[in-house]
């Protein structure tokens, strides 16, 4: 689906714009707010730092080209581990559509026990299952959430499910935002068939149809404030090679209201720079990541894990241990990269790629991340894993290995740097409890909570409607709002909360 985007990089000189509502960021949160406000008759302007890569171009990109053009830092962003915590590779999108265009399309509603915690312990009484249900339903309709049929499971996922069944774990089908998916296993790197219903296929075209304007290549540096009122935003246009004597053009937007939806890494930076929410002392704190660990398993038979849906099934049987196991696959090159060794040894191991199955384990973590200003304009993010979460890591690795061995795997490759594949006997002898954090391969796709909502200024950055404490017209509408870890993929939660924020703004 194509829609008009103003490419900032094509505009020479400075740009001054005026609108009712300016939205910083075009991902899952910003796109929803943009569509709903535009459809209510507001003059909406969306500013996106990343480029606009139309679906026709995305369809032609190889994974490495997609990484370079659509992922923040080419997929190399990290949260630096502090104390006994692993350093975590945090992946995010940086393009029109934000992270929604690099997800595996997995959709979960906020789990009921999480909502019970929010409305009970945190006092967010408005956020119950029944009050959010209409928002979930609206979002799911808009992005075409459907269950992945069992016949679309990859052989790797089928084998994992067999092992899980033997151990008494229940596997359930995942739901994804897809329409006409044929299971080519490339969701993270741009659906070649345009079947993933990310916001560039759904909410953003709706926003434009309702009169919203989207500018790409526009980096917002600061929010202009006058007392407790936001009066607009200022930033610069990211030009391609502007040349030695040419400075990048500036962009200034005057607006009645400002919505920040730049993601959990950048939203707190913008708030910090303009001093909004400062009194709370919570800006940039309380970030959760869902630290995730992959497990590869080698089977005698050819698995060809790239055949079938990238993500199709999961198990919450170990939820009481803070662990959700989710099916996935990664491109062959990524599989090869995790094979230890160099030269002949590496190439020999990489020859096993067609025999590898993959599964992932995601920790329902306590808040341990902090976003600070880093050198330049990028944030410096640290993550101190809670002691209980750190203690769970060996268990995550053990559980997934047990499932694969029960399914008949010959070897597993634990997420430990430099660790070759091990048989069941060798695995039993691994001292998982004493693996140094620096050797753990850990990733995250779900940074959340760095400008969390709450009931008081002392404990949160925004109120339950997403309005920043101490301001009249400055709102947050992205994953930063989410007050605790979810234990499941957050896309639908973020979009439902953004729907609520937009409705409160109308």
């Amino acid at each position, binding site marked *: 689906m194509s829609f008009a985007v103003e490419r900032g990089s094509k505009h020479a000189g400075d740009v001054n714009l005026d609108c009712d509502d300016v939205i910083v960021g075009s991902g899952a949160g910003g796109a929803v707010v943009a569509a709903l406000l535009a459809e209510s008759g507001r003059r909406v302007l969306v500013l996106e730092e990343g480029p606009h890569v139309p679906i026709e171009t995305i369809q032609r990109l190889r994974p490495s080209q997609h990484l370079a053009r659509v992922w923040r830092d080419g*997929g190399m962003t990290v949260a630096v581990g502090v104390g006994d915590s692993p350093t975590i590779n945090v992946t995010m999108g940086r393009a029109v559509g934000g992270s929604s265009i690099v997800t595996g399309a997995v959709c979960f509603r906020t789990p009921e026990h999480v909502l019970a915690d929010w409305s009970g312990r945190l006092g967010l009484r408005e956020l119950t299952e029944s009050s959010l249900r209409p928002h979930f339903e609206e979002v799911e309709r808009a992005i075409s959430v459907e269950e992945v049929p069992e016949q679309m499971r990859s052989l790797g996922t089928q084998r994992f499910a067999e092992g899980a069944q033997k151990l008494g774990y229940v596997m359930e089908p995942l739901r994804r935002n897809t329409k006409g998916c044929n299971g080519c296993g490339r969701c993270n790197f741009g659906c070649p068939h345009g079947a993933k219903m990310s916001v560039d296929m759904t909410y953003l075209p709706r926003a434009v149809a309702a009169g919203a304007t989207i500018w790409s290549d526009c980096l917002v540096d600061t929010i202009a404030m006058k007392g407790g009122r936001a009066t607009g935003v200022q930033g610069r246009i990211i030009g391609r090679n502007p040349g030695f004597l040419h400075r990048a053009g500036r962009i200034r937007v005057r607006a009645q209201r400002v919505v920040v939806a730049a993601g959990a890494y950048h939203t707190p930076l913008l708030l910090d720079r303009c001093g909004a929410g400062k009194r709370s002392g919570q800006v940039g704190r309380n970030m959760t990541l869902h630290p995730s660990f992959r497990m590869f398993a080698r089977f005698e038979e050819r698995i060809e894990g790239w055949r079938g849906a990238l993500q199709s099934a999961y198990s919450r049987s170990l939820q009481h241990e803070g662990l959700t196991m989710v099916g996935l696959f990664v491109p062959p090159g990524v599989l090869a990269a995790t094979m230890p060794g160099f030269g002949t040894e590496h190439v020999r191991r990489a020859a096993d790629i067609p025999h590898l199955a993959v599964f992932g384990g995601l920790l329902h973590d306590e808040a341990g991340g902090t976003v600070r200003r880093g050198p330049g304009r990028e944030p410096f993010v640290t993550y101190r894993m809670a002691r209980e979460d750190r203690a769970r890591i060996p268990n995550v690795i053990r559980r997934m290995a047990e499932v694969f061995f029960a399914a008949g795997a010959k070897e597993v490759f634990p997420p430990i740097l430099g660790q070759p594949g091990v048989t069941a006997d060798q695995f039993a002898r691994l001292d998982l409890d004493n693996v140094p954090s620096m050797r753990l391969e850990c990733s995250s796709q779900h940074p959340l909570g760095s400008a969390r909502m709450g009931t008081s200024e002392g404990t949160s950055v925004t109120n339950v409607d997403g309005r920043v404490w101490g301001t009249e017209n400055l709102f947050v509408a992205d994953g930063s709002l989410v007050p605790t870890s979810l234990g499941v993929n957050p896309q639908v939660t973020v979009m439902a909360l953004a729907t609520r924020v937009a409705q409160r703004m109308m």
Partner: protein
Amino acid sequence: MTKTMLRDARAFAEALFSTERGAPPEARIDWLLTELADFTENAGARATLILQGGLLTASWLAPPLIGRAPPLARLSVADRCRALDKLEHTPAGLPLLAVKAMLCIIYYEHPDVQRESGITTGSAQKTSCMKSVTS
């Protein structure tokens, strides 16, 4: 990418993907480095910095681990493999992961490599594998 970065990346890649027959064909490594340059150009300064850090670590810290003087490019392919393998098992091995990951992601997109490795995703054939997308 700077000349030094290209030299270090070539030395790293020749070792990583070498077999009993030696380093991969030169044309394939040339293609890999062209694609790596395209990656750094589009992925931004931080990604380039991370890769540069990993390459520097490999180039200067790995050779002393087998009693040889740096940089890595001066060593034979077999010695490079021994040195990098040793480095990978030390705490300083973490920065290697980014370099290894990026080189592998690109390398295994090459249709010849996919064919040799039994990878049949077909993505390389469907897309413009041998040519960079510039839009």
